[in-house]
């Protein structure tokens, strides 16, 4: 049997590995479609043949839920993540308050602060820390958080704000500060089965995702697994 999973692109590495294991164990096929959460959510609205949806933002999941597109009682928060200030090259940790001075005329790379989840969280955190007004003119926004990482990795921008999962992935950047969890809304990746999809098989995979093998894979990529 085949299961189609729509998942936020940032979960690709872990999810690929988990799906591989599950397939080997059960003999089922998993098709994983990675794209931005917004694109995936919209496709589901238009009847995409998804059985499960893993979103990088609760907003899009809320939107689907309101429209009654989720299979009842299947939604839960699967993953959590942290937000980090990253710097180009190998750098010691620093106080966030120094950022405006350290930045000077240079740019702070972030995902789009009004549109992309990582950017929205980052803006919230900076506002919370009272730094947004000073930093806002320096923000270079990208269309996804990975692009922000690239800007820092190439040295185009000396600093950037990404998830810790992203920061861990690049050898050219170092985490110089981790935003406290209470400085921004909780970063959660909700998952749910889609109404009209293969909910039976979906439920099987969902429970596998809560299992120990999945947990290990997610943790290895730096995610926090929220689901018990």
């Amino acid at each position: 049997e085949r299961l189609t999973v729509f998942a936020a692109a940032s979960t690709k590495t872990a999810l690929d590995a988990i799906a591989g294991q599950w397939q080997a164990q059960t003999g089922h096929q998993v098709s994983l479609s990675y794209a931005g959460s917004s694109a995936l959510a919209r496709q589901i609205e238009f009847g995409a043949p998804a059985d499960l949806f893993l979103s990088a933002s609760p907003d899009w999941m809320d939107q689907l839920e309101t429209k009654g597109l989720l299979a009842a009682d299947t939604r839960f928060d699967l993953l959590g993540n942290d937000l980090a200030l990253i710097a180009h090259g190998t750098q010691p940790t620093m106080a966030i308050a120094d950022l405006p001075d350290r930045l000077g005329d240079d740019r702070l790379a972030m995902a789009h602060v009004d549109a992309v989840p990582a950017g929205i969280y980052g803006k919230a955190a900076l506002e919370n820390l009272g730094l947004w007004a000073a930093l806002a003119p320096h923000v270079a926004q990208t269309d996804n958080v990975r692009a922000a990482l690239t800007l820092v990795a190439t040295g185009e921008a000396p600093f950037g704000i990404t998830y810790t999962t992203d920061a861990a992935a690049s050898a050219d950047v170092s985490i110089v500060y981790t935003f406290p969890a209470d400085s921004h809304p909780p970063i959660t990746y909700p998952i749910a089965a889609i109404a009209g999809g293969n909910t039976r098989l979906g439920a099987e995979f969902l429970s596998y995702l809560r299992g120990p093998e999945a947990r290990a894979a997610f943790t290895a990529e730096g995610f926090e697994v929220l689901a018990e």
Partner: protein
Amino acid sequence: MSGWLSPEALEAIRLSLKVALWATVLSLPAGIFVAYALARWRFPGKQLLNGLVHLPLILPPVVTGYLLLLAFGRTGLIGQPLYDWFGITLAFRWTGAVLAAAIMAFPLLVRAIRLALEAVDPKLEEAAKTLGASRLLGFATITLPLILPGVIAGAVLAFAKAMGEFGATITFVSNIPGQTQTVPSAIYAFLQVPGGEGAALQLVVISVGLALGALLLSEVLSRRVAKRISGR
């Protein structure tokens, strides 16, 4: 996921080629027709058609993809009747990727053919008419061969564009491996992954190679045709 190509990547290449070929082949007749209409006819709404053809160029691809979803999605204006009456769905199928690629490439195709058409002396078709050729025959035997370099140029532009199309495709048909994951989508997915640049680069190189091959082939073809025509 480095080393040699993953089955997923191979699958993406196969699919991209299939999509680009179909998109090019299917849009060619329509492209020639529309180019002819724009170049030679006068009709009400001509500028509207012209604008419509160019729309995918002007719009951010994501928007085009979104509009395609609106129109051809299962609940869409065209998608719903298409499904209800013929059982055809395009969204989330490779056929939808063909549609997306064809629509994105269409302005390039039409412009190239139209430019070629405008350069053909209509007096030659007149001469064919005096020899008994109907309008259609005159077009097929005189004008069409003479615009062949333009048609080839348009086709290769369309093919290249179709090979590279990402935004509209991923928005319209998503990114399902083996079904709708084209090379650009796969590249995108790799780029989202820590350390995925290597695999992405591999795909970039391959798709560039394929498209350049097509380009080179078209150059050779079109030079041969042009030489024949100019008699030089």
